[in-house]
């Protein structure tokens, strides 16, 4: 063992109680930091997973119609973007053409056309306003998690009947609907009778309260829309590709195209603010421990002034003395981070098993956590920086002591 480490350990022992306080602070600080990050990141990740499973990674909507001035340059790659010169025409007139064009994008793994509208659901002598979604089941399952959102009935039953319906959990509850019940949907086209094949729950309140899924062919009659689609929902190899890809798709297919990050900006911002503010709040625990540590080290330096002088006289250099005090900080931070991370892992595990019913922006029956090694790294880095700063000044003070002056002062 290098002598400075040995001396550091013994000096720490001299202020055991004060050092244990700082150590405890660092352990708690690190643990709480990781736990709150695991939790906020967990909720964020779960929210993203939910939202992607419901509304997809990228949506192509509304056709972009250029004004005359720009169509005049048709044929050349030259284009002018002028505010107000672009008109959006709702919906997609030729979904097949657009989907075919998507074949040119290797990142796109699936695309599915959807028709959206409004209809009144009538059952048990009551009426309820819904937003029916006409889907092409096979492809839609590739761009959503509809299959895992089913809480009653089955996707299979839906697939087998052209007049089957999947209703949101909140609608089912309000209208007292069971799988197998018959309901009437009244839209701009012809009213039609459907059978409830399944009930889904996404956890997103608004979706569960107003959305019903029916087959594309059925919704055409219901809404009197014999052709086209309202939007095309797209799945990618990786959700993180969406922001870069969306503008390219938009250019290629001349339809407004939005990535999920853009669409869910508000919520994503809420989550990131939450994460940063909890990180800052919890970091204060670490800062305060650092302050305590600083105090204790200064006390040790004052306490050990003669010992430092005698160590210097017997051949320990300024760097050795400085190292003795930096090492005291180092020992505390290493032990603190190790214990803190262990406590964090235990706490995160326990938290993830605490039952709590969450509905509104996603559905969960327990705390959601995200295991991310970077949370541990971040906590360790913060603790290390704080303790290094807290140890630096006392160690410098110790190193600067003049052994001659100290010994002269204490022997007269």
């Amino acid at each position: 063992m290098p002598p400075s480490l040995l001396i550091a350990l013994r000096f720490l022992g001299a202020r055991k109680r004060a050092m244990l306080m700082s150590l405890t602070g660092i352990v708690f600080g690190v643990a709480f930091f990781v736990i709150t990050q695991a939790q906020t990141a967990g909720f964020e990740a779960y929210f993203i997973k939910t939202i992607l499973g419901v509304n997809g990674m990228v949506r192509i909507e509304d056709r972009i119609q250029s004004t005359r001035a720009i169509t005049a340059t048709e044929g050349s790659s030259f284009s002018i973007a002028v505010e107000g010169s672009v008109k959006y025409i709702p919906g997609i007139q030729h979904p097949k053409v657009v989907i075919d064009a998507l074949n040119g994008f290797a990142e796109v793994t699936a695309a599915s056309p959807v028709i959206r509208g409004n209809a009144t659901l009538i059952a048990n002598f009551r009426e309820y306003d819904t937003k029916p979604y006409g889907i092409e089941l096979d492809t839609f399952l590739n761009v959503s998690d509809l299959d895992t959102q089913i809480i009653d009935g089955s996707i299979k039953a839906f697939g087998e009947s052209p007049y089957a319906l999947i209703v949101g959990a909140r609608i089912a509850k309000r209208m007292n609907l069971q799988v197998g019940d018959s309901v009437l949907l009244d839209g701009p086209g012809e009213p039609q009778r459907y059978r409830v094949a399944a009930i889904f729950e996404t956890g997103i309140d608004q979706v569960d309260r107003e959305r019903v899924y029916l087959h594309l062919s059925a919704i055409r009659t219901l809404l009197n829309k014999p052709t086209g689609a309202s939007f095309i929902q797209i799945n990618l190899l990786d959700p993180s590709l969406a922001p870069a890809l969306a503008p390219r798709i938009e250019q290629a297919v001349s339809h407004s195209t939005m990535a999920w990050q853009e669409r869910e900006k508000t919520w994503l911002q809420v989550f990131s603010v939450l994460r940063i503010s909890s990180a800052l709040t919890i970091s204060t625990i670490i800062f305060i421990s650092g302050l305590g540590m600083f105090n204790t080290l200064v006390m040790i330096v004052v306490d050990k002034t003669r010992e430092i002088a005698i160590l210097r006289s017997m051949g320990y250099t300024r760097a050795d003395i400085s190292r003795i005090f930096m090492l005291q900080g180092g020992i505390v931070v290493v032990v603190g981070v190790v214990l803190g991370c262990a406590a964090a892992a235990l706490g995160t595990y326990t938290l993830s098993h605490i039952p709590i019913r969450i509905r509104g922006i996603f559905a969960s029956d327990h705390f959601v956590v995200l295991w991310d090694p970077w949370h541990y790294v971040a906590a360790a880095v913060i603790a290390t920086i704080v303790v290094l700063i807290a140890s630096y000044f006392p160690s410098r003070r110790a190193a600067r002591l003049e052994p001659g002056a100290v010994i002269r002062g204490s022997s007269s």
Partner: protein
Amino acid sequence: MSLLRVENLHRHLGEGDTRCHALRGVGFTIEGGRTYAIAGHSGSGKSTLLYLIGLLDIPDEGRIWVGDRETSRLTDDERTAVRNEHMGFVFQFHFLLKEFTALENVMLPMRKLGRLSEEAMRAKASDLLTAVGLGDKTRRLGTQLSGGEQQRVAIARALANDPSLILADEPTGNLDHTNADRVFALLSDIAHQRGQALLMVSHNPDLANRCDHVFRMQDGVILA
């Protein structure tokens, strides 16, 4: 070649009104295997001189040779290395590190020098403590030893790296007559046996006169 030589040392201490010319041109040489005392009235500059020789302080003027090495241009780290290897200090207050046992205290200078294995350091420290009559108390902490015993541990520690020069500032100042006598005899015997030089500041004229040579100081100079 002499073990240590000083030439025309001057040292001012304090600032402003309290500034005082503590050393006014001191010079002498010290040979190995001999004992030297610095005697003189309080305030005559004895400690100041000893700290300069021990490279714990820097003279305003004059030179100090340790062996053939002139020390005025050495860096702090180099001076520290010279102390580690060539000098052993004993002060009026023993300055044992109280979290360490007697044995560990004696091992501290050896650890810094880093020339011996852990076992060899242990054995040597144990021998040194036996030599100062504490062979049976090596595992005691400083707080579990009497004042005289602590001072003997400090002597053992000063001898740890076989220094060529032992510098002692009133090593017996804090001890009763019997203990003072023992500690002095110990220092003087060891110096003679091992060929080390002892330079000791002492108020005690009796002890000073038992040294091979006495420097008498007055007002910052050594009287002929």
